[in-house]
């Protein structure tokens, strides 16, 4: 991997019409394509779809890309998706940056010209940033195989028993002196009219 010379691929998602209706995605792709280091800039209907991801993967191979920017939705939605995709194509997943031109742009700006301008700036920011990305590593760490359940009503009891039956340690914390919650106060319960204790 060549860290000194970024070869950036930038992808502008249309998200059906979610983005494309207010952002001129072709204009964005065109502008981004002129930025230094950007080897390829495209727009596509659904970047998150399999064909969308495959587009990135094949471009990485074909154009020897080493940085990927996707301008689409919130990273909460699809950052993991794209990181996974570029990892499959042999890139470190942190050579990736997302610009949220949907929630922070197309959904909140009505004027197409303004939205397009903002989308360009947001995508440019991502492109500028990614030059300085480094190949980071996720840190694996052991999980404590125990669960804390807060509240000893029926939900807490049910969840505790399920987990404990699977052989895991459960700490069931109850505020009162005994468990059962409201259920312990009931007589018969619908729809079967059986006893609640």
């Amino acid at each position, binding site marked *: 991997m060549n860290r000194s010379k970024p070869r950036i691929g930038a992808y502008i998602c249309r998200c059906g019409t979610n983005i494309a209706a207010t952002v001129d995605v072709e204009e964005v792709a065109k502008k981004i394509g002129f930025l230094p280091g950007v080897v390829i800039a495209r727009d596509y209907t659904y970047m998150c779809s399999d064909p969308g991801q495959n587009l990135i993967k094949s471009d990485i191979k074909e154009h020897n890309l080493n940085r990927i920017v996707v301008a689409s939705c919130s990273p909460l939605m699809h950052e993991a998706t794209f990181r996974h995709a570029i990892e499959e194509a042999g890139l470190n997943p942190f050579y990736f940056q997302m610009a949220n031109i949907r929630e922070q742009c197309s959904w909140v700006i009505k004027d197409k010209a303004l939205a397009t301008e903002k989308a360009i700036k947001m995508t440019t920011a991502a*492109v500028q940033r990614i030059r300085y990305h480094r190949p980071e590593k996720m840190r694996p760490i052991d999980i404590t195989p125990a669960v804390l359940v807060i509240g000893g009503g029926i939900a807490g009891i049910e969840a505790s028993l399920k987990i404990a039956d699977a052989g895991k340690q459960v*700490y069931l914390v109850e505020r009162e002196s005994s468990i059962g919650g409201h259920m312990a106060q009931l007589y018969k319960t619908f729809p079967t009219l059986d006893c609640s204790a």
Partner: protein
Amino acid sequence: MVSVGRHENIELLTLSEIEELSGYVGNFKATIRQKARYVQEDMCTGCEACTQVCPIEVLNPFELGLAMRHATYRNSAQSTPNAFAIQKTGIAPCRDACPADQRAMGYISLVKKHRFADAYWTIRRENPFPSVCGRVCNHVCEDACSRGEYDEPVNIVAIKRFVADWAYQHRDELDQMPDKSIPGTPFIHKHQPTGKKVAIIGSGPAGLTAALDLVRLGHKPVVYEQFSEPGGMMRVGIPPHRLPYDRLAWEIDLIRREGVEIHLNHRVSNAPGLLNKGFDAVLIAAGVHNAVKLPIDNSDHPGNWLSTEFLRKVLLGERIDLSGRHVIVLGAGDVALDVARTAIRLGQPKVQILCRGMRCSEHELKAAEEEGVRILSSRVFKKVVTADEKIIGIRCLDAEVGGIVDGRRIVREKPGTEHLVEGDLIIWALGQKGDYDFLPEETPIVSQNPTGIQTNNEMMTNIDGVFVAGDIRQGWTSFVVNAIDEGHHAARAIDRYLNAGAGIPEPSHGMPVAKLTREEIELKITAGRASNQPRIKISSIPPEERINNFKEVDLTLTEDQVVAEASRCLECGVCGECMECVAACEKGAIDHTMRDRIIDVNIGAVIVTTGFKDFDPRIAPEYGYQYPNVITALEFERMINPSGPTGGKVVMKNGRRPRKVAIIHCVGSRDDKYHQYCSRACCMYSLKTAQLVHEYVEAEVHEIYRDMRTFGKGYEEFFNRTKQEGVHFHHGRVKSITREEGYLHVSWDEAFFQQPDHVDVDMVILATGMEPQQDAARLAATLGISRSNDGFFLELHPKLGPVETRSEGIFLAGACQSPKDIPDTVAQAGGAAAAALSLIDQGTVKLDPAIAQVQEALCAGCGQCATVCPYGAIWIENGIAHIDEYNCKGCGTCAATCPNKAMTLIHFDDKQLISELVGALS
């Protein structure tokens, strides 16, 4: 519930709440506070012996206030865990104020239940002199009493006196009883002897309290008393019209019978020397027995007597006749009054008390004046005037007397007001000091004569093994109850000394003081949980019947009076630690010294299942909950439950079965005034309630509903069955419920065309909705999860993440997420369990690399980063900041704070951020 209790993989922590959650997905640490149960869960067999003897009654929250429960309680016979618990809200203010730690609230609650013998044992736990303190105590407990905020404090001292008198009258029976003050012991204790001997100088309250404690610890105390009667100031300082000799003698006899040796007429001249005469420790508790005189003219004339000497002579039997004399008592306190009233009884001389301003018990002052004692206050005296070698009076000046500052009165003499107060006998009662006759001439003990003897924290003098307690330690007089406290302290200190530091530790309550506010008091009194009667005052025998004898002046309360007075107690701390339960528990499972426990647990995931709070219909007056026989559905559940407060009977306030019942849907739900949401369980439980009323109560049932939401599996069929059983359904929105003569009038609008819009019934059941728990906001903040607008905890996504939260590793289930019924709750709990299992079963979790890192070369170790880190993930070691990479959340606060730019955030370094900004601003 039972399976939870015995599952080997479930650790059940009851009476517990989460205080803190730290860490991250897969590796959380929870800090849990477990409140003291005061009953050892593993030892309690649930036999109920403790609750049967508990005198305290409080509203039972499990029964929704429909019944009472004891301070020692268990929610139901089927509870898991089955162990009892004890409810304490703090230490009662009366006990907190008492120097001797008397469990006043504890014994008062027993008196309220006519349990005088039990009350006696409770008093005697800390106090070997109930008869004395029931008469002559300064009762600071009453000053602290919460009831004083409302009207007048409980007459605690009179209650104690009654109990002590009752015990004296039943003293022969007491001998046959086990001493409940020390569980499992007979009245006369048998102790495992330690072989250690302790000499005690003085048989006053301090010396005898210490002696009794020491003998009960197995040591051998020997008490030396210089006078011919034991009791110290209680015997030679307090006249019998206030404290009869026989009561004191009985209480001292009880102490002797436990094995305390008292040698009378034995003056010790070398206290430290006793260590060489076979004693392992010495306690000086000699008291302060010498009244002081001021060096004014003629104060050395033999017509000047000392209060201590005068009282001692009279009380030890010397015949003194004062008839025809003019006595002037100099002093302002209780001793001056004792002297004056004793003098009156020796031939009714003219008695005047001369002082700046009285500082004494109001009750004693009134009694003295009734007996003919004249108080001449606002005066300062200048000299004793004599003529022909005889005293003729005291020359005085009038004075302006102000308040008390630093224990002394502010006094301004008025020049030119000089006058003579006539009298031929002066008795000085201005204060007392100790003598130090028990120390040899060249004593190495550091005394601060005349203000006491210097001791360390363990009440020991500078001589190893010589201890001091009581008035002689301080160098001035205080009350019996203070001396008792000193005696206990000294006994524990001596025990620790004899056991080389082991032995009994100093007790501590570890609880806040449970002083009630005026609002809380009013609530208790209006709810009838404390009597609204005024304080019962003690009465006295008429002055003419008492001024020529030493009969006790104050009368004890009658049994009815004492119970009435005890019923005024507000039982501030709930449990008053009367210790009846400890005596009753055969397993020894009760431990009142338990403290809250902080428990840390490490977990990989958290499931929040804190449930809901029932809507409180008191805030919705249109539903008539303020009227009798308007109840909530949950109250109905308790009533119809065979283990509930009515044993399964649904009855009205008059005890009769209702003939006609209305059930109101949507109370608090789907209503802009209260909650917009549907509580989702109420339609169905209302139908169930209707079936139960129809079947078990055999009453006519009317349901007033707005929409019938029977969406679940088998629910519509349930509705149909209810209709077929003959339940009447009315569509409408309830406008009002009003109370009419003999019935409740329910009316509604939006009724179907030409259908009824009201019904008159005997009972109304309100189908109240669900609300978030009261502390949902606090828990959300503790766990770092969000809440939706309605206040319930917010799931990650209503469809894609219904049991997850935005905080990875924290899951939700049940009504804490949104109102739901039992089938949905159980289903969601299963989902949450699966999600949590799926997480913790992965073995490892991958954490984001975006955390802080230190450029060691740049770090100056100033520590500002550690101060600002919200996760406590930074510490300074060897002058350099270190990062706990697992607790760092990558928030960047440290990087923004570091003045040297030594802190950077991986994946968010300056270069990356600045070029991103450049891009955005291009």
